[in-house]
C-alpha cells in the first residue's frame, strides 16, 4: 500500500489549489487529500471551506456524509469485505465473523499492531464470485477462511 504523508497544511493547500479549476471540485479535493494523508483530518475542513467559499459546517457536512472519508489514517493495509446480499447467499457473514474473531478486531477497526483495517462494503460487483473482498484495491473472489488468513498474514509482514 502506498505510504501516506503526515499532515502538512502547505501541501494540502497545493492539492486544493490544483483542483479549483474543476466544476464542483469538493469531491476530487477530498479524494486527493485522503490519497496524500490517508484521511481527511479535522484541520483540512476549514482550509477547504475557505478555498471553496462555503462554511466550515457545510464542509464538515460533506466530509462526514460519505463512508469513504476517514478522520484518521487506516492501518498499513485495508481489507474491505462485502456484506451485501449476493455474498450473504454464499455464507459471507459467517466467514467474516469468524475471521474478525480470529484477528481480534471488529468491523471498521484496525488490528492492535496497526497492520490491517477491516471495513464492511456493500457490493464490489464481483457477485458471480461471492463472497468477495478488496485488499489494498485488489479484488479477491470466492473468499474463504484460508484466503482471509493469508491476507492477514501478509498484512502483518509488510
Amino acid at each position: 500500500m502506498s505510504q501516506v504523508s503526515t499532515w502538512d497544511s502547505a501541501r494540502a493547500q497545493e492539492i486544493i489549489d490544483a483542483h479549483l479549476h474543476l466544476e464542483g471540485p469538493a469531491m476530487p479535493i477530498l479524494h486527493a487529500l485522503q490519497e496524500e494523508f490517508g484521511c481527511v483530518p479535522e484541520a483540512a475542513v476549514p482550509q477547504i471551506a475557505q478555498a471553496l467559499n462555503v462554511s466550515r459546517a457545510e464542509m464538515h457536512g460533506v466530509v462526514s456524509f460519505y463512508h469513504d472519508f476517514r478522520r484518521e489514517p487506516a492501518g498499513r493495509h485495508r481489507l474491505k469485505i462485502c456484506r451485501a446480499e449476493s455474498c450473504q447467499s454464499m455464507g459471507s457473514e459467517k466467514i467474516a465473523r469468524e475471521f474478525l474473531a480470529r484477528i481480534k478486531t471488529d468491523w471498521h477497526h484496525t488490528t492492535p499492531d496497526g497492520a490491517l483495517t477491516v471495513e464492511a462494503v456493500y457490493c464490489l460487483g464481483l457477485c458471480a464470485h461471492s463472497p468477495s473482498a478488496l485488499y489494498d484495491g485488489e479484488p479477491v473472489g470466492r473468499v474463504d477462511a484460508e484466503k482471509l488468513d493469508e491476507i492477514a498474514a501478509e498484512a502483518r509482514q509488510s
Partner: protein
Amino acid sequence: MTKVFVPLDMAAKAMGADKVAAAIAKEAQARGQNVQIVRNGSRGLLWLEPLVEVETPQGRIGYGNVSAKDVASLFDAGFLGGAPHKRSIGKVEDHPYWKRQHRVTFKRCGVTDPLSLSEYESLGGGVGLAKAFAMSPAEAVAEVTKSGLRGRGGAGFPTGIKWKTVADTPADRRYVVVNADEGDSGTFADRMIMEGDPFALLEGMIIAGYAVNASKGFVYLRSEYPQTAVVFRRAIEILQEAGWLGPKVRGSNFAFDVELRIGAGAYVCGEETSLLESLEGKRGIVRAKPPFPAMAGLFERPTIVNNVLSIATIPMIFEEGAQAYADCGVGRSRGTMPLQIAGNVKYGGLCEVDFGLTLGEIVNDIGGGTLSGRPVRAVQCGGPLGAYVPVKDFDLIFDYEAFAKRDALIGHGGLVIFDDTVDMLQMARFGMEFCAIESCGKCTPCRIGSTRGVETIDKIRQGQNVEAEIALLEDLCNTMKLGSLCALGGFAPYPVLSALRHFPEDFHRKSVPAAAE
C-alpha cells in the same frame, strides 16, 4: 505470433487473471514462443474466469478456470495451437452460454482489447456516431425515442423522452451525466462494459451531447470499482488524443469532453438527484422532484442522467437503426437486457438476451441452479430494493410491466439466487438495516422508518406479539413506500414485504435462537 487473451476484468483478476497472464508471459519466454498477450474484457462467462483464449485458424479456443499452476501443462499440451487440455472448453463462440445470447450492448465486450481504438473501429465502433452526426440533433433524439430504449438503471423511463426534455429546455449550457454508481448487490454490468468496452460508453455520451447540445459529460463511478477507474480514465485519454473528445469532435464543429468522477461509498448517490448533489460537491442528499434533472439538473442546468447501459447501447442503436433495436423484446420492454446472474449459482455471469424469458429459464437453464447443489428457495431481483421471488413464481416473464404487476422489479437486471438454507427473516431485516445505513436522512419515512423496521423485525424474531408486530411492519412499509422522497425508502419495503408474503413460515417460528448472523 499467437494471440492469447487473458481478461483484465475485475472479476477475472479476483480469480487470479494477473498471475495467469504473468505466468504465460514467463513460460512463453522460457520456451522461446512468440506470444502476444491481449488483456481483453470479460465475455461474461464469469464462473469460468480466468477464461484464457487462444486465437487459432479455427477460431478462439477457450480454457476456463486457469490458474498459474496450469500454465506449464497448457504449453506442454500445445494450447497455443488450440490443443485439447482438461481446462479446454472448445471454441468459446460455440459455448451454449454464449450462443444463446443476443449481444447488442455487450457485442464487443470480452472480444476485443478494450483500449485499442483500431479494434473498436474494426468492429463497428464510430459508425453510430457518424450516423448521428449525419442527422440533425432533433432527428438524433427522435431516433432514440423510436428505438423504445428505456433507462437501464432500474426505473425504465423512456430515454428518448428524457433527451427531448433536456434538448427543449432553454439554457446557457447542458450536461450529460452517466450514472455508474452501480451499488445494487448482484449487478456488475456497468463495471464490465466500462472495463471491457469503454469506448462504447464514451461514444454514446458524445451522441447524447450532440443530440441535446451539451458540451460536457461526467461519469460518476463508485469508489468500490478502483480497477474500473484505471481502465476508463485511460480510455478517456485515448479518445482525447485521437480527437474524439475535445473542441472539435472528429473534425466537426461540435465540442464535447468527458470527466471521470469517483464517488465515496454512499449507496444513495446512485439516486440521480443525490448523485448530482455529490457531483456539485455537496452531501449526497436527495432533491425533491420536480424540477426533474432534465430541466434543472447539474448546477441547475438541463441534464441527461442516464445509466451506463442505456448510454453504452446508444451507438448500437444508431449503427443498426432504431427499428432493429425496437424489433427485439416483448410488450413495452424493447431491445435486450444484460442479465446478471449471481449469488449462490452454478453458472454466474452476464447474459444479454431479448426481454421475454421466464425467471425459471434464467435461473435454472442459464444459471444452472445453485452452486451449493441445494434447491433454490428465493431469487432477489433488482438489487437491495428488489423483491424476493419464490420458486412458485418462476413463470414470471422478464419484462418491466410483468414484474411490476407482481410487486417486483427488474431494476438493473441483477438476480441473486439463494438456496434453501436462507433465513428470509434475516434477509428482510438486512433490507431495513441496509436502508438505515445508507439513508441520506432527508425524509423521515426512510431515515426513521428503516431503523424502526429493524427493531420491529427483531421483536418478531424474538417471538414478541408476532401478529401485532407483523401488522405494524406492514403498516410501516406502506408509509415508507408512499411517503419517501426517493426509491431508497420507497423501495426498501419490497424485499421486506415479499419475504413476509412468500415465506411467512420464517416469521412465525416458535422460538428462534438469538441472532446467529
